[in-house]
């Protein structure tokens, strides 16, 4: 049986796991993107995808449709990943010098130099990677999450506040702090572009 998004949601809310499967298959990649940017590595990100959908299944009857299902999933993912990062008390970037690293082919900054880059472009991208990774790692979990949700996911501030369980003002200031820190770290590259 094929489902549209709304029909799948309605069926899933009534306990139909086949319908939920449709939603999982449709939204997994987007949830992975968010989790990857928050955790910095693929293994943890994939675990967070599982956690997100498991929680979503348990809570799906609470989904009220005020936001889109994708946004609701992002909230769950952000919450679970913040908890995970706090419990691990660290951020695990995938970026290494390559070589022995089995994840090196998925190095997030390797792709900066994709599409047959010029040597200058490759050098600039490598420099960006070298500066971006510690800059992001230096953010607090809340700052990183708020920034990722705003900058990469395009969520409005009130949605970010809801995902983080804080008031809008606190979410806004987390974004300000994150941008300020990143700007300080990245300005040498930005001004060279």
């Amino acid at each position, binding site marked *: 049986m094929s489902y549209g998004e709304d029909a799948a949601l309605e069926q*899933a*809310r*009534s*306990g139909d*796991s086949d319908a*939920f*499967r449709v939603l*999982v*298959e*449709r*939204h*997994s*990649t987007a949830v*992975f*993107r968010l989790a*990857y*940017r928050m955790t910095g590595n*693929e293994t943890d990100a*994939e675990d967070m*995808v*599982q956690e997100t*959908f*498991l929680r979503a*299944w*348990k*809570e799906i*009857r*609470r989904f*009220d449709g*005020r936001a889109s299902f994708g946004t609701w999933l992002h*909230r769950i993912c952000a*919450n679970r990943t913040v*908890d995970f990062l*706090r*419990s*691990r*008390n660290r951020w695990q970037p995938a970026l290494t010098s390559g070589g022995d690293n089995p994840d090196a082919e998925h190095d*997030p*900054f390797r792709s*900066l130099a*994709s599409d047959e880059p010029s040597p200058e472009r490759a050098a600039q*991208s490598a420099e*960006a990677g070298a500066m*971006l990774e510690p800059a992001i790692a230096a953010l607090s979990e809340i700052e990183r999450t708020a920034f990722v949700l*705003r*900058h*990469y996911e395009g969520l409005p501030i009130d949605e970010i506040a809801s995902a983080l*369980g*804080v*008031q809008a003002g606190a979410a806004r200031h987390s*974004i300000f702090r994150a*941008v*300020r820190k*990143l*700007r300080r770290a*990245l*300005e040498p*590259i*930005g001004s060279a*572009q």
Partner: protein
Amino acid sequence: MTHLTEEDQILVYYNEPGTNNAKKHLAECAECKAAADSLARALSVCNEWTVPERPPEFGHDVWIRLAPQLDVPARKAPGWHGFRLWAAAAGFAVLLLAVFLAGRYSRPTPVMDAPVMAALSDQARERILAIAVADHLDRVQILLTEISNTSETSPEVLAADRDRAEDLVQEGRLMRQSLEAQGESATTSFLDEVERFLVEAAHAPDSAPTQAVADLRDRIEAGSLLFKVQIVESNLRSNLSNGEHKL
């Protein structure tokens, strides 16, 4: 002329609502325009951070791993099965506390005839209490999350939430008393704050369930309660995983 602050510029960059005046100023002020361009250049570096591609079958793979864990069907409304799970979890927490208290207060004449409990060290009992408090906060977090994400509700759902809140009040009181006996203050104060909210939730009025949930949601947001619960629980679990068990 008042120039834009960096915060104003960030809000403009992200095209936040309420920035029309700032945008007008930017169009007229070369100094602020230069600063905004500098901000945009710095942030454009972040745009180059791409995520590793997933294969087309990624969603299917996620489902294959997930499906065995979905053995409990989702429910339209809270039912007996959910209540039993909740009660079992709460009961386990109380049992853990009983172990803690039996060891702490019953020597040299243990109330519970359980050699295993008597054999536990103070350290083990403190660890058990820390686990029980973390589990309690996890259940509180689930309830707060559900309330925070609910816009409309029915009397049945509200009644189930009320019951859970009442269970958590009882459970939390036991833990608070145990902590007070240890002389602990920070976590005790926090449990007290959580309890005040739970008491309110346990007495939410039936007459207007949606408004009652909205009021509870406002309480959660005003005190950043969900955020605090997440942090305290996370710190507890982090300490436990590092072999520390002091609350």
